[in-house]
C-alpha cells in the first residue's frame, strides 16, 4: 500500500515537472519578459542591465531551477497587463471559480447519477428515452451556446435570474469571498453552474447508465435475485454500489475539466473568476498569467488524479489487496 502511494506520488511529481517545463519554456522563450518591460526607446545598455538583473543570462537549467523554486513559493512574476503579481491576481479570483466549479460538479454528479440510474432501470420508459435524447443534445451543444440559451430564457424572457456577475459577495477571513451567503449571490450562481455542469452531467448520466446495465447482467445480481432480495436492495444496495466505483473515478477526474471549462462559462456570464483572467491573458499575450494558470490547472489535475486513485483503493476491497502486493 505504502509502496503504491509513494510510486503514485513520484509519478505525479514527474508530470508536474513536465508541466512546469512547458510553462517555463512559454514564460522564458515565447514572451521575452524583458521586451514586455521596456519601451521601444529604452537604450540597449539598459535592456542588457535589466536582462542580467532578471537572471536571463544564466544557463537555461539554472533558470528552470529558479522558475521551479519560485513556483513552489507561488511566485510567478508580474502580469504584463495589470503590473501586479500574478499570484495575487489569481488568488483574488480563485474563490469565484472554485465556488462555481464545485457547485457545477455537485449538480452534475447528483443529477447525472439519478438520471443514469433511472435510465438503466427503466430502460424502455419514455422518460428514459427523453433523458437519452437530451444527453445526446447535451454533448452536441457547445457550452457557450447552452449559456446563451439559458440567459435568453431565464434572464431576458422570464427575468428570473441575473445574466452576469456574481451578485453580492461576502468576505470570509482574509481573502476568500463567497456568494453563497446572499440571495443575489445564490441567484447569480444558478445559471452558470447549470451551464458548466450540463456537459459533465450528460457524461455521468451515460456512464452510470452503461455501467449499471453492465452490473445488472452480472452473476452476483442474478444470485441476489435468486435469493429473493427486494428489488430495492438489489438496485440500490448491490447494483448501485458496484456501479458507482468507476463513476467516482471519472467524476473525480472531471472536476479538473470543470475548472478548466469554467473559462467558457465565466466568459458567457462575465463571472469574475480565474478563467476570465486567463482568457484576457491569452487575448493580450500576458505570458506570466498563462504560465501560472497552466501550472495551477496542472497541479489541480495531478492532485485530483492522485486522490482519485488513492480513494479508489479504499473503496474497492479487491484493490486494497492488489495494492499491498
Amino acid at each position, binding site marked *: 500500500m505504502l509502496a503504491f502511494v509513494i510510486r503514485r506520488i513520484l509519478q505525479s511529481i514527474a508530470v508536474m515537472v*513536465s508541466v512546469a517545463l512547458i510553462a517555463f519554456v512559454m514564460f522564458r522563450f515565447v*514572451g521575452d519578459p524583458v521586451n514586455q518591460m521596456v519601451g521601444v526607446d529604452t537604450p540597449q545598455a539598459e535592456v542588457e542591465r535589466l536582462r542580467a538583473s532578471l537572471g536571463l543570462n544564466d544557463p537555461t537549467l539554472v533558470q528552470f531551477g529558479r522558475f521551479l523554486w519560485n513556483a513552489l513559493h507561488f511566485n510567478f512574476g508580474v502580469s504584463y497587463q495589470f503590473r501586479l503579481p500574478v499570484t495575487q491576481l489569481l488568488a483574488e479570483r480563485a474563490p469565484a471559480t472554485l465556488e462555481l466549479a464545485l457547485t457545477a460538479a455537485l449538480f452534475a454528479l447528483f443529477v447525472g447519477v439519478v438520471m443514469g440510474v433511472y435510465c438503466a432501470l427503466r430502460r424502455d420508459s419514455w422518460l428514459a428515452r427523453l433523458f437519452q435524447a437530451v444527453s445526446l443534445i447535451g454533448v452536441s451543444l457547445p457550452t457557450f451556446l447552452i449559456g*446563451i440559451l439559458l440567459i435568453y430564457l431565464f434572464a431576458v424572457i422570464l427575468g428570473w435570474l441575473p*445574466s452576469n456577475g456574481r451578485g453580492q459577495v461576502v468576505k470570509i477571513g482574509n481573502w476568500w469571498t463567497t456568494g453563497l451567503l446572499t440571495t443575489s449571490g445564490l441567484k447569480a450562481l444558478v445559471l452558470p453552474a447549470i451551464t458548466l455542469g450540463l456537459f459533465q452531467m450528460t457524461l455521468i448520466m451515460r456512464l452510470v447508465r452503461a455501467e449499471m446495465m453492465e452490473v445488472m447482467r452480472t452473476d452476483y445480481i442474478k444470485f441476489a435475485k435468486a435469493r429473493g432480495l427486494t428489488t430495492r436492495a438489489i438496485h440500490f444496495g448491490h447494483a448501485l454500489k458496484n456501479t458507482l466505483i468507476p463513476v467516482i473515478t471519472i467524476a473525480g477526474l472531471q472536476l*479538473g475539466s470543470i475548472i478548466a471549462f469554467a473559462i467558457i462559462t465565466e466568459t458567457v456570464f462575465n463571472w469574475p473568476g480565474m478563467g476570465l483572467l486567463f482568457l484576457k*491573458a*491569452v487575448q493580450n499575450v500576458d505570458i506570466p498569467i498563462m504560465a501560472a494558470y497552466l501550472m495551477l490547472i496542472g497541479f489541480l489535475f495531478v492532485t485530483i488524479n492522485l486522490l482519485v486513485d488513492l480513494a479508489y483503493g479504499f473503496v474497492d476491497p479487491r484493490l486494497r489487496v492488489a495494492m499491498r502486493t
Partner: protein
Amino acid sequence: MPTPTPEEVKGLVAGGQSGLVARLLDSDVYASFRSSWMTMIAAAIVALCFIGAAFAPWIAPTDPFDPATVFLSDASIPPMWQQGGDPRFIIGTDDQGRDMYSAILYGLRVSLMVGGLGVLLAASIGITLGLLAGYLGGRVDAIIMRIADVQLTFPAILIALLIDGVAQALFRGMSRETSAIPVLVISIGLSFWVQYARTIRGSTMVEKNKDYVAAARLVGLPTPIIMIRHVLPNVIGPVLVILTINLGLAIITEATLSFLGVGLPPTQPSLGTLISIGNRYLFSGDWWIVTFPGATLAILVLAVNLLGDWLRDALNPKLR
C-alpha cells in the same frame, strides 16, 4: 463482416473506386445505415452543410463581406415574416446590415474548413506518432506516450487556448486575418492527436508481430516502407470513426475559441464568431442575430455526432 479485414482495408486503399462503391452498397454497414432513419437524416444534414459551405459564394444571395453590397441602413432587420422584415433578407440582417443567411453560409464554410483541416492535421500527427511508437517501441514509444499522458490530463479546449495564445505571441507581426485560420488549425491539430496515436500504436504493436511484416523484413525492405506500405493500411480502419467523432468536437472547439474572441475575427467570421456577435444583441431583442447561427451550429454538430455514433456501432461487431 462489419470490421474490414486487412485484405478488405487493402482493397479499400488500393482498389478501384467502382469496387469500393459496389462493396459498400453490399455491406452490412450500408444495411444498418438504411435501417436507421435518424442516421439518414443526420447524413442528409451533414451533406447539405458541406454543399452549402462548398458553394457558398454561388448559393448565397449576397457577399456579406463585400463592403460595396452591405449598407448600414439595412442593419438589424428582423426575419421577413416579422414586422419590419424585408424579403431581400430571409432571416434578417445583423448589426452591420449583412444578410444573416449569407453570413451563415460563409460562416459554415469557415467552420467546416477549420474543423476539417484541424481534424486531418490531428489525424496525421497522431497516425505518424502512433506508428512510430508502436513499430519502433523502446525509448521512442516511451517518450511519445509520456507526452500523450501529460497532454491527456488537460482538456483539449485548454490546450487549444494555450497554443492559440503562444501562436499569437509568435506571429505577433501578422494580421489576425492571415494568421487566424492556420493558428486555429494548428491548435486543433495539436489538441486532438492523442486519441489517434493511442489507437494506431495499439494495433501497430499487434500487426508488427504478424508474418507478413516478418516476411517484408526478411526481404530486406527498409523500415519506413514497411511501416507505410504494409503496417499502415492494416491499422488505419478505426481512424475513420475517430475522425467523424472528432469532427464534431473540432467544430465545437473552433466555435468556442471564436466565441471567446481568440479565434476568427469578425471580418472573417465562423459560426462561433457570428454567435459571439449576436450574443451582444440578445438583450436588445434582436434575437435572430444569435439564434440562426446558434441553431445551425447545434444541428450540424448533432448530425455529425449522430453519424459518428452510428459509424462506431456499425463498425463494432461486439455491439451486434
